């Protein structure tokens, strides 16, 4: 029952996103301008052929002259039947997105791996030395890590680690050789966030009775932390992963563009720069779909690892 409710909520969210993105593109832009959004779109498509007759034909062909509710229904219909087509090159929007999905997925999952690979040892270290100078120093680093904007970090890493030091590739196609720097860019902020989250979770768990019991049985502090405390500290962190996923997607947009990584993020930027309206709508909807799916997935995993949540 709970699961069904989650799915229903997810669908409702997607519908809401589709309405908002439609209004943002077709209704809002007319305010403060002497031009209707449909005319602006037709003008972009017409390019050098922007005479009255052509503009009228373009609007008729694309249904841009119909009332807004009709246009919305057409848009949803096209999206559901995978008939949404790019204004620029005629690509089927969701097929184009799907073709780029593996590149983005590879980058996103590597970034999440970077989160955990950095965050877990750091959190164990700071929990062990809580309150000591090393903990305070790491705290400072984490605040910096969380605060750095991705687009700036991306350029810094690209320039210093890639271009100057030549340690990693500066970017290019979506392949393993080009993966380290974009993954690190996306991973650092999340790692800093997770290091703090795990740290406070660990501190909380360490005060619980079963830890005292473990200590009483003569286990070393390392075993207590790594084996007993960490497991329970990780559970709440899974829940946060769903939310963290949305900010990961936002970071992907800049990161992919800067490193020339041909994924969905760079597709989103290109579609905005080209004013390719169907592609903009497609990338926004698909991102919303990913966030909703990630949240449902996290919910399911959470139920598996923490039996207390099951009803």
């Amino acid at each position: 029952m709970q699961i069904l409710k989650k799915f229903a909520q997810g669908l409702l969210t997607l519908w809401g996103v589709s309405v908002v993105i439609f209004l943002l593109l077709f209704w809002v832009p007319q305010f403060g301008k002497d031009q209707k959004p449909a005319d602006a779109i037709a003008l972009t498509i017409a390019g050098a052929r922007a005479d009255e007759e052509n503009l009228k034909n373009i609007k008729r062909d694309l249904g841009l002259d119909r009332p807004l509710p009709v246009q919305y229904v057409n848009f949803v219909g096209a999206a559901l039947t995978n008939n949404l087509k790019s204004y620029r090159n005629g690509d089927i929007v969701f097929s184009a997105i799907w073709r780029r999905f593996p590149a983005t997925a590879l980058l996103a999952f590597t970034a999440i791996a970077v989160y955990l690979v950095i965050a877990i040892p750091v959190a164990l270290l700071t929990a062990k030395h809580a309150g000591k100078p090393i903990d305070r120093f790491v705290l400072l680093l984490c605040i910096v890590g969380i605060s750095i904007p991705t687009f700036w970090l991306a350029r810094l890493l690209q320039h210093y680690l890639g271009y100057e030091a030549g340690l990693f590739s500066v970017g290019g196609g979506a392949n393993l050789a080009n993966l380290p720097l974009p993954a690190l860019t996306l991973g650092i902020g999340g790692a800093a966030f997770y290091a703090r989250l795990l740290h406070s979770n660990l501190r909380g768990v360490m005060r619980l009775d079963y830890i005292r019991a473990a200590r009483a049985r003569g286990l070393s502090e390392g075993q207590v932390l790594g084996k007993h405390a960490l497991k329970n500290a990780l559970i709440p962190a899974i829940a946060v992963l769903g939310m963290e996923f949305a900010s990961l997607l936002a970071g992907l947009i800049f990161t992919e563009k800067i490193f020339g990584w041909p994924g969905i993020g760079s597709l989103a930027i290109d579609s905005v720069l080209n004013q390719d309206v169907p592609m903009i709508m497609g990338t926004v909807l698909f991102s919303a779909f990913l966030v909703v799916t990630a949240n449902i997935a996290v919910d399911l995993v959470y139920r598996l690892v923490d039996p207390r949540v099951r009803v």
Partner: protein
Amino acid sequence: MLVGCAQTPREAGVLRVAQESDASTLDPAKAYDTTSIKFARVLYRGLVDFDQNARVIPELATRWTISPDGKTYTFQIRDGVRFHGGEKLSSRDFRFAIERMLDPKTASDGTSFFTNIVGAKDWIADKEKPLAQQKLQNIAGIECPDDSTLVFRLEKPEATFLANLALPFAYAVPREYVRALDKEGKTLSQNPNGTGPFRLKEWVHDGWLTLVKNPDYYRAGVPKLERVETQFGVGSTLQIMLLEQGNLDVQDITSAFPPDFLRLRDKEPWKSRIEHAPMMDFRYIAMNNEIAPFNDKRVRRAVNFAINRERIAGFLTGRVTLAKGVLPPGMPGFNPQLRGFSYNPQRAKQLLREAGFSPNKTQIPMLYPTTEPWYAKAAQSVQADLKAVGIAVDIVPLRFGDLRAKAGTRGPNGARLSFNGWLQDYPDPSNFFDPLFSSRSIKKTASLNRSFYQNPTVDTLLETALRETNQAKRHELYRAAEKQIVEDAPVVFLHHSENYVVRQPWVEGPVLHPMWSAVYEQLAVTE
């Protein structure tokens, strides 16, 4: 699946390039942006082409004759040429290409280049009718007496007709193949089949595009490359890093960020690997000649004297030539003796006094496009220059499409001052003067003559030049027209851009061309 192209190690015979934006189409009938034209031309070929000196040379036509009245062109087509799909090239493929391009369904940007062919306008009108009412089989003025002969009849003589035929709009497309694609609902853009030196291997929109050598290209020993790998979505800074690391072979740095550009330009080893040539464009500020104060020639001349062009060139780190007139250097008919305007605020003030101009209270809006970052700086610079002589201007940034619409609208709803650029369709002076300064290109909307300038003397000179087939005489006529245009100053003559390209030492062959942004068939990548 994940592997893109760039970043492959250097390999003889493989050219690796990267650019920011993708082609919008590979259909020669629709290719009208620089990138689309570049690829359409290596996949397809036409009757004629341009050589390194911007002269029209034979391509798929072996020779041609022009009737004494200049109205009939007869082409002999090369024997034994085949399309990538194996179809034998026939004169009818050229006729089909032009008929298809003129069909309003194709929505080509090239129709205006071919409406001088007898029957072309009737063809367009016929195709606008519902299918059942369409009567015409072919355009009356294009005849195919046999597979290797093609005849064009024109309504009036046109000195640029050969140049028009060198544009991808007129390149041969295999007629049966295209008809079959149409039936299957597929596009030619996605399934190209031409006679060009390269074939398409793979094209992922906004991702990458791979060309492979066409082993059956009619010209022996060409192309020298086995493969051309282009990656899209690579920003200017990343392009230059990849170049410096040896991961790209040829790179256009015309619009690279100034620090990146200067790093390459001023330091070896790159310094000596940079080449440059005129882009064949004209950047100008259109003044609306029909609305006060710019309906007065003295005010327009004053504006030209008031503006410091050197400063604007500085924003582009000097990648320009200051404009003395309309034609860029390197263009046939370019007049090196033209003096143009220099920065002289005193002279400007004097002219404004003579015109009885008193400093304006309500600011005149000056529009500039947000496409290139230097425009904003240039607009501020011009605003300050004009303020110094008493003309108050308000600067307004606009998206490119909005600016084009505003600047092309006649009357008070249009622009009064706007930054514009014109890039050649082909290297011929008519392609600058006729669209920008002929009264015939004044329209109510989408006007190409954006200063709404009319001068009967200039109109007559341009009309005569378009009919004159003797090139030397034509160029004299254009020089006279240009002199008059500079005298009337309908626009502010800013500058002509300069193309800059860097190559790796292992790349051989020309990297710059007066017409095409790349001539891959002439490049080689050595060990």
